[in-house]
C-alpha cells in the first residue's frame, strides 16, 4: 500500500524538485542585483547539513547569522560545538571553545577568498564574480544560480556552488557547496529578518 502511494506521489515530488533553465536570465540578473542593492542587513538562523560519502547520516550544525553592509558578517555555530567567525571589513576573527584568533585579510590569501565567498553568497552577489561561470535555473519554489569555478584555486575546493533564492528574490534561501569529491554542504536560512537594525557591536570581538 505504502509502495503504491509512493509510486503515485513520487512523480509529483520529483516534478516539483526539477529545475529547468531560466529563459530570461537578464531579468533574473537585474532582480538579484536589485535585491543585493536594497539589502542592507540580514539576521537569520541557519541549519547546515554536511553530507559525506563515508557517512550514511548527515552532520547537522545549527547557528545564527548576522550580516550588515558593507563587509560585516557574524557567522556563529551553537551545535555541535560553539564556533564563531566575525568578518569586520579587513579583519577576520575566529573564536572556538579554546582560542580566539585574529587575521588580517590582506595578509592571508585563503581568508580573503573565504571572506569573498561568504559575504558574496550571503549578499547574493557571487554570481557576478569572474571566478565562476553561472547558469540560471528555476522551479516552482526557487531560482537556482549554479556556479562552476573557473580558477584553479576554486576548482580545487569546489565542484559547484548553488545559490537558491525564493521566487520573490528577497534574499538567499539556501547555499549548496558541492566539493570535488561530491560531498556537499547545504546551508538553509530560517527566521530571516531583512533590513532590521543590527548593532555594529555584534561584529566586534574583544
Amino acid at each position, binding site marked *: 500500500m505504502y509502495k503504491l502511494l509512493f509510486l503515485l506521489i513520487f512523480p509529483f515530488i520529483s516534478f516539483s524538485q526539477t529545475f529547468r533553465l531560466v529563459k530570461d536570465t537578464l531579468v533574473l540578473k537585474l532582480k538579484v542585483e536589485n535585491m543585493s542593492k536594497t539589502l542592507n542587513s540580514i539576521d537569520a538562523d541557519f541549519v*547546515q547539513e*554536511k553530507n*559525506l560519502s*563515508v*557517512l550514511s547520516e548527515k*552532520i547537522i*550544525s545549527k547557528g545564527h547569522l548576522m550580516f550588515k553592509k558593507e563587509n560585516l558578517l557574524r557567522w556563529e*555555530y551553537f551545535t*555541535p*560545538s560553539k*564556533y564563531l*567567525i566575525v568578518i569586520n571589513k579587513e579583519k577576520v576573527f575566529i573564536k*572556538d*571553545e*579554546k*582560542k580566539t*584568533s585574529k587575521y588580517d585579510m590582506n595578509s592571508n590569501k*585563503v581568508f580573503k577568498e*573565504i571572506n569573498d565567498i561568504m559575504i558574496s553568497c550571503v549578499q547574493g552577489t557571487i554570481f557576478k564574480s569572474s571566478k565562476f561561470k553561472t547558469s540560471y535555473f528555476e522551479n516552482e519554489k526557487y531560482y537556482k544560480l549554479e556556479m562552476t569555478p573557473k580558477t584553479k*584555486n576554486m576548482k*580545487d*575546493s569546489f565542484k559547484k556552488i548553488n545559490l537558491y533564492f525564493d521566487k520573490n528574490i528577497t534574499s538567499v534561501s539556501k547555499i549548496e*557547496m558541492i*566539493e*570535488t*569529491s561530491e*560531498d556537499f*554542504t547545504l*546551508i538553509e536560512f530560517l527566521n530571516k529578518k531583512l533590513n532590521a537594525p543590527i548593532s555594529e557591536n555584534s561584529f566586534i570581538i574583544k
Partner: protein
Amino acid sequence: MRLFLKIALLLSSILCISGCRISKYNHRNCDKISLTKDLITPVFNPNSTLRYNTTIDVLKNHLTGLIIVKQTDSITKHIVFVTELGMKMFDFELNDHEIKTAYVFEPLNKPKLIEALKRNFSNMFLLNELDKNGIECSRNGIKFFFVANHTMKWAYSGPVSDNNNLDLRLQETFHNHKRTSRINYIYNVKTQSYSHITCKQYGLIKFYFELTEIQK
C-alpha cells in the same frame, strides 16, 4: 651569575632529555607477549562511528572541526576531518596494511604534513598493526605493553579493565630511543569509550591534537 645560569640550563636540558627517553620503561620483571588488539580496549569499534570535536595546532596554525572515524567495508576505515564551515580537509583511507590519502584540501597538501597527520591519527586510534612481539609489565595496578619494529617503539600503559584488557591512559612513541609523541587518553566507563584524547608530537615541527568525543 652567568655561569650559574649556564649550568642550570645545561642541567635542566640533561634532565629533560633523560626524562623524554625510553629508559623509564626499563623493567626487570616483564613477560614476553605477542601484542594483539584484544589486549587493549580499542579506541575504535568497527560497528560504530567515532565522532570527536577536534583542534589541531601546528606551527602557528590552529584548525578546528570534526573528526569522523568509520569502517566502510570489512577491511577499510576512513578518518575524515571536516571544519565547522563544512569544508572537508582530509579523508584518509586505511586498510590492514597501509594508509592512503583519499582526499586532501589542496592548501594542506604538503607531504610532511600529511605524513604526520596519518601517523598521529593512526597512533591515536590504534589503527596501526599491533600484532607484534613485545613485553608486558605490571606495576602498582598499572599495566604496560611495549612493542617495537626496526625503527619505532610504542609504549602503552593504563589500568586493567574488568575483562582484563588495558584501558589505555598513555601511549608514547619513540624513534631511536627519543620520544616522538605522547598521547593521553581519558576513558569514560559509562559510555565505554575514550572521551578525551590529546596528542603531542615532538621534534622540529610540533603538533598538538585535542579530541573530545561527541556523545549521541
